[in-house]
């Protein structure tokens, strides 16, 4: 038993959840995701579960930037999109085999990290604000470029493509169903996504708990002092931005494999950037477990809150304004308000709240 605990602790880089409630919640999410195809049958449910897995990686990688290093980037979906397009376009043009997938991933990683490096060099020397504005501009330019180069990217429509045989929905892997579930390529794809996401999340956890991660936090807390201690702030910030970009690219690759489609709406749009921002802040900045909680909550809300609001909207028919306020399309309003409130009242998010009493107000500049 001692041994097992030590192994789990090592897997989590000795950064265990700080409270029992948090640990229980995380365990529940892990269990739910691991058994999703068996527990929640149906195409919609498995889609939701896969989306949660993919976004946990994306949101965790964004948290490395925002929560741990204290820099705001609006170009994170750009890297997500590079991953998606990298895998998607390779599969579309070169055929559906695993080596092609690997090729797409490698090309996307190189491109994404190089781009993050250049942006970092140009803009990370100066204030956080500068970086935020420049990334916003670069991301929107990239979005337009991706939609304009329609010969390559398929423009607004994006590209649908075939994935390798093993993870195609039509593939049957086992003759007999397991616990009443047909083991198709879709299930295989889900478990590929799930384990890849789990591995990437553990890598991210390892990263923020390394010496490197500590330096990042030092920079966030007091840039001048970190510099005075001999850490080159620009170097660390640029490296953090490159690593976070690499993780986002990986998440994009997973997304392309799952959706069998890549387009501007699903990977590059500003709406997704806002979603990621909301997930990080509501879940809790500066703790990767917050990313898990925030993502799960947000994606579930996105899929199920709308139905609830539809019912509420119909129930309040006749009262002025209220039905429109509760219209299913307005779910983002509620989450937006929640977002603003969480920045004010619990900047450490849900995960931070569950972990214990809030720390002293940090000075974030």
């Amino acid at each position, binding site marked *: 038993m001692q041994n097992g605990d030590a192994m789990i602790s090592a897997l989590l880089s000795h950064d265990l959840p700080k409270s029992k409630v948090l640990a229980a919640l995380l365990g529940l999410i892990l269990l739910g995701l691991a058994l999703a195809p068996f527990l929640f049958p149906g195409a919609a449910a498995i889609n939701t579960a896969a989306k949660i897995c993919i976004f946990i990686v994306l949101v965790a990688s964004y948290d490395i930037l925002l929560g741990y290093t204290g820099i*705001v980037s609006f170009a994170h979906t750009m890297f997500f999109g590079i991953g998606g397009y990298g895998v998607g376009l390779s599969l579309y043009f070169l055929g559906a085999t695993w080596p092609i997938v690997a090729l797409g991933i490698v090309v996307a990683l190189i491109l994404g990290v190089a781009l993050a490096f250049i942006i970092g060099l140009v803009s990370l020397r100066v204030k956080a604000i500068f970086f935020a504005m420049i990334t916003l*501009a670069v991301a929107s330019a990239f979005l*337009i*470029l991706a939609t304009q180069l329609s010969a390559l990217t398929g423009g607004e429509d994006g590209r649908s493509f075939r994935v390798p045989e093993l993870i195609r929905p039509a593939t049957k892997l086992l003759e007999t169903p397991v616990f009443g579930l047909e083991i198709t390529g879709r299930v295989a794809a889900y478990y590929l996504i799930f384990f890849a996401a789990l591995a990437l999340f553990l890598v991210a956890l390892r990263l923020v708990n390394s010496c490197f991660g500590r330096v990042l936090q030092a920079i966030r807390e007091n840039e001048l002092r970190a510099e005075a201690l001999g850490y080159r702030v620009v170097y660390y910030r640029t490296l953090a931005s490159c690593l976070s970009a690499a993780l986002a690219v990986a998440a994009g690759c997973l997304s392309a494999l799952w959706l069998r489609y890549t387009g501007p709406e699903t990977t590059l749009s500003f709406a997704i950037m806002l979603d990621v921002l909301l997930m990080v802040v509501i879940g809790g900045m500066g703790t990767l477990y917050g990313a898990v909680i925030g993502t799960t909550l947000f994606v579930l809300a996105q899929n199920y809150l709308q139905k609830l609001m539809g019912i509420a909207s119909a129930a309040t028919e006749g009262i002025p304004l209220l039905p429109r306020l509760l219209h299913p399309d307005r779910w*983002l309003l509620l989450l937006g308000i929640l977002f603003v409130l969480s920045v004010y009242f619990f900047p450490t998010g849900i995960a931070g709240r569950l972990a214990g009493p809030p720390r002293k107000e940090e000075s974030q*500049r």
Partner: protein
Amino acid sequence: MTDQAAPAPLIGPKRDLAPLLLPLAIAGFAFLLIGSPTTWLTLTLAALAMGMMVFVIASGLTLIFGLMDVINFGHGAFIAIGAYLAMAVLGPLAPWMQADSLTLNLAALFLAIIAAMLGTGVLGYAFERVLVRPVYGQHLKQILITMGGLIVVEQLLHVIFGGDQKTMALPTALRGAVLIGNVALEKYRLLAVAVGLLVFLVMQLTLNRTRIGLLIRAGVENAEMVEALGYRIRRLFVGVFIAGSALAGLGGVLWALYRETFTAAIGGDVVVLVFIVIIIGGLGSVGGCFLGAILVAMMANYTAFLAPKVALASSILLMVTILMWRPQGLYPVAKR
């Protein structure tokens, strides 16, 4: 660069004219590439009109930043509010808009603009009070909070006005173009240029010739010193924030009429240009902002004609080039 050089005179700082040559250079270069003078003139007018609209929106933002080190990522919300308010006012005034009389048309537009500016000014006050004030001096939280404000405002606009795409037609007398020789000049663009220049002039006069302007400029240079001299910089800042929001509202009306259709996301596209403009101009500098707006608009319009696929990428290229030349922007404000 020698230390022995005569000390700079105390009054009247050295005028820095080099950046002023940039628009001329770009216009000249574009003329060579385009070839046809009439096309070039039409494009240049379009660029000036767009530049003026972007300037109207950006000027408030850059002053807000210069004075209190506050960056408002929710600035786009005021653009959208301005557009929707103008639409609400112009709805009942439709007969005035469709009448074939310039006076009535302009009167309707004037009323719409006043309503939009008043509305966005009041909302700007509320925005500052509720969202921005608690997070002074914390950049990270400012960016997040104002972004959250933007989401909430956009959704509320959908709740109040409905989520569909809105149209706003130009008044009769401003449709079409005037022909001067071979050159077609769109009437509405001329109006936009005139409004933009008016705003620029009023702003310059206020900043350079009035007491309040003096305090604002001093505050941008060194806010602590102004406070030490007994002026309430906060109150000044609230005033600038309201004015900046009202200008964004004005810009929203102009931009919506220019595009003729809009949704609550109208602010998003412009705000990207606005950020590029204030980075190019130097954060906090009104003159730099004016020049930056013209430069960005020129690049956008010329490249839209010459190589439409890379239009927005050209603004990024412009920004990177200028930042390599002057890392703090064209006209950097002291100590920033």
